[in-house]
């Protein structure tokens, strides 16, 4: 099967999101779609699957002009869309989820579980996967749930499968399994459209790549004929120089020193960070990196260990204690723990610092507003103003708002958990630049990251955690992808 989207245009009101774009995919290839957030990737895929109506342009299926009125029609033509957010009902059994609204019935309106199991198992066999159909789907790992989604599309006999950031929540191990499945499907003649932000995956899995920017398709390459630099250039519309800004650290005194930190998630963790330093924390998902940081910041309890900030030993019972000693923490999940989405930017940004604006018991409104405006400007947050709701901003700008909170609270030790996750390339660069500026002024930064390129590209030292143990802390300039992965999987470097 081959699909050609030709001269597609789409506007929402006066906002032109697709401008005469062309895109094609054929059976037996993995075609990656790259672009910053808002480049138009999702809109294009929504048009392909009948969720949106184009203003103009044609879709050819095997050379024949075709028009999908809705997602079901697209599905019947063999086009499946696996969304980034899986809409599963966590409490419901696997089987029920797989056949939701498509239950197979025998007489009297009764559901034919046996037949459904046979069909489902056939699809899962193609993926070499076994699950207990009666288990609640929420108990499966995200990776397994992803596989179930793929199995669902196989059940509908999909010829083209669209995957929107399928690896965003997967472990390294699960990603490799997913890739095996993708290659297998490709070899069976299925065409895959692969949307991702991760450059290294692109070169591992894709045969072709199309880069989009500002509603235009910039270029389509055979993956073998291009490189990272070219693609980044196309994505951002300019040369980024080196993707990561250089570090020129000047170290000062030790700002944070922990020793023997222990709770149920990690054991005997000791390390220190100096003023002006970026210490990256690497490791596989679930290794305990986030948990260590949460305990240092007083969100989770510690069973043992000592924490010294700026040379003083502290007892941190809650985040308030940490903040009052100038420790800041950008959490991994900005939507659930970083932001109050329907509060204004101002109410989000000044929250950790708000006690400082109390004058005779009342808030000094003017000082507070000036403070917020200064931070919005300094972090180059793109918004109408301080009264915008935080939830209305793009991911990158939301992240800058969370950073503004902690820059504003005067953090001397700043813990950043996945600071660039779900953030587009341009905003990523801005976040790195800001981190450089902060360390130049003497802040000590801990950066937890699952992105190995980022860890190697933008840190001074790397701490590697494996199953709750701090394996080693190495100088970034001596580290390689391989040496870090070895430590992260429990091995030792010679």
């Amino acid at each position, binding site marked *: 099967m081959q699909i050609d989207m030709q001269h597609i245009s789409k506007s929402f009101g006066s906002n032109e999101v697709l401008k005469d774009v062309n895109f094609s995919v054929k059976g037996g290839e993995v075609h990656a779609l790259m672009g910053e957030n808002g480049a138009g990737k999702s809109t294009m895929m929504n048009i392909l699957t009948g969720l949106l109506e184009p203003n103009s342009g044609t879709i050819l299926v095997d050379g024949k002009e075709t028009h999908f009125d809705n997602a079901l029609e697209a599905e019947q033509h063999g086009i499946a869309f696996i969304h980034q957010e899986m809409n599963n009902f966590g409490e419901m059994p696997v089987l029920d989820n797989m056949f939701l609204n498509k239950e197979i019935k025998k007489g009297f309106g009764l559901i034919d579980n046996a037949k459904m199991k046979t069909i489902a198992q056939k699809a899962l066999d193609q993926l070499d996967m076994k699950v207990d159909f009666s288990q609640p789907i929420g108990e499966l790992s995200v990776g397994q749930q992803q596989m179930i989604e793929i199995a669902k599309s196989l059940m509908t006999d999909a010829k083209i499968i669209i995957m929107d950031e399928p690896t965003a929540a997967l472990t390294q191990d699960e990603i490799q399994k997913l890739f095996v499945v993708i290659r297998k499907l490709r070899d069976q003649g299925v065409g895959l459209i692969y949307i991702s932000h991760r450059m290294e995956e692109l070169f591992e899995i894709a045969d072709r790549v199309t880069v989009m920017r500002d509603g235009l398709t910039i270029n389509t390459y055979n993956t073998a004929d291009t490189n990272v630099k070219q693609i980044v250039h196309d994505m951002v519309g300019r040369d980024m120089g080196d993707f990561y800004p250089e570090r020129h650290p000047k170290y000062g005194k030790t700002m944070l020193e922990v020793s023997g930190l222990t709770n149920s998630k990690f054991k005997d963790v000791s390390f220190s960070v100096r003023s002006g330093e970026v210490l990256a924390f690497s490791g596989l998902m679930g290794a305990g990196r986030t948990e260590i940081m949460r305990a240092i*910041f007083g969100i989770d309890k510690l069973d043992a260990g000592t924490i010294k900030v700026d040379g003083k030993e502290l007892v941190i019972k809650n*985040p*308030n204690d940490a903040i009052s000693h100038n420790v800041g923490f950008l959490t991994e999940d900005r939507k659930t*723990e*970083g*932001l*109050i989405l329907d*509060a204004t930017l101002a109410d989000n940004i000044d929250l950790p610092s*708000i006690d400082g604006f*109390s004058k005779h018991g009342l808030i000094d409104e003017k000082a507070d507003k000036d403070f917020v405006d200064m931070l919005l400007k300094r972090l180059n947050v793109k918004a109408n103003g301080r009264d915008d709701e935080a939830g209305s901003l793009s991911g990158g700008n939301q992240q800058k708002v969370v950073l503004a909170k902690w820059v504003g609270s005067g953090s001397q030790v700043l813990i950043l958990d996945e600071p660039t996750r779900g953030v587009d390339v341009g905003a990523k660069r801005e976040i790195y630049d800001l981190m450089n500026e902060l360390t130049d002024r003497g802040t000590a930064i801990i950066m937890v990251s699952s992105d190995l390129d980022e860890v190697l590209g933008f840190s001074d030292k790397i701490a590697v955690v494996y199953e709750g143990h701090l394996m080693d802390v190495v100088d970034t300039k001596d580290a390689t992808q391989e040496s870090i992965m070895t430590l992260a999987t429990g091995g030792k470097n010679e």
Partner: protein
Amino acid sequence: MSNQTEAEAKKKFSFGDFYKKLGPMVALIVLIVLVSVLNFSFLDPLNLLNLLRQVSVNALIAFGMEFVILTGGIDLSVGAIVALSGAFTAQLVLAGVPTLLSLLIGMLTGAIFGAINGVIIAYGKAAPFIATLATQTILRGATYVFTKGNPITGTKMSNNFGFQFFGQGYLFGIPFPVYIMAIFYICAYILLHRTTFGRKTYALGGNPKAAFVAGVKNNKMIILIYTIAGFLSAVAGAILTSRLASAQPDAGNAYEMDAIAAVVLGGTSLAGGKGRMFGTLIGALIIGVLNNGMNLLGISSFYQQIVKGIVILVAVLLDRKQAKA
């Protein structure tokens, strides 16, 4: 082109803003006009002053309820606190304890009951609805035990000028409870909109996890907020006891409903994080005008309940619609 849409967006936004801020106000004005047309004696100054005095009890409870609901919680025990703290105050006055001290002790016990609610919810991680439903039952039962099921009254209460003045007196022609309501409104308004305590209340309701990470001491805040709700309920209880010159064992029955209704009518979201103290004042006035107006119009109390329920329902549905848009 883009300028035009921007202007349009602004226009739409300011209309939504207008609705959010002034919707309850408009409803109140419409209601007042309607009732005045149907019965001219509504606008009689004496009736209006009487109305304000009636409103004061519910308004005081509602001010506390506003804080509670902003955190995403609810307090069903306020009516029972009105009864028990009122009974304590009455007993103290009868026992010859100085009036002011009796009143203060009554209010203090209300604050303590509120604090207990807060501790159960904060540290027991209990759902506010169930926790305060339980304490409501306990406190109501305790009131019956304490009063032995009979009203507490006596000449020491009805002859005590200071005590009588608290609920029945007039100052410059205005009922004294109206002053109390005004003073606590100003306090509550400042606390919510001008202090860090208020900011943290909103943060707690908007996203408790994010608030905690940003250094808000969630448990402490919850306890303080339920303490405020308990305290203000006890103030209302003191007014009620003084006005009736007796403490009734079933005083304040279902008062939590009128207080919650006032908060919701005033535009505060039951999900927490959104609402204004001014709205709650307006909400309490709407309930007051509704009660007073229907009495003037001679509508039976059975029908009154139905009307009140419908009004609350309409307010909630309007609020939902607006939230979606």
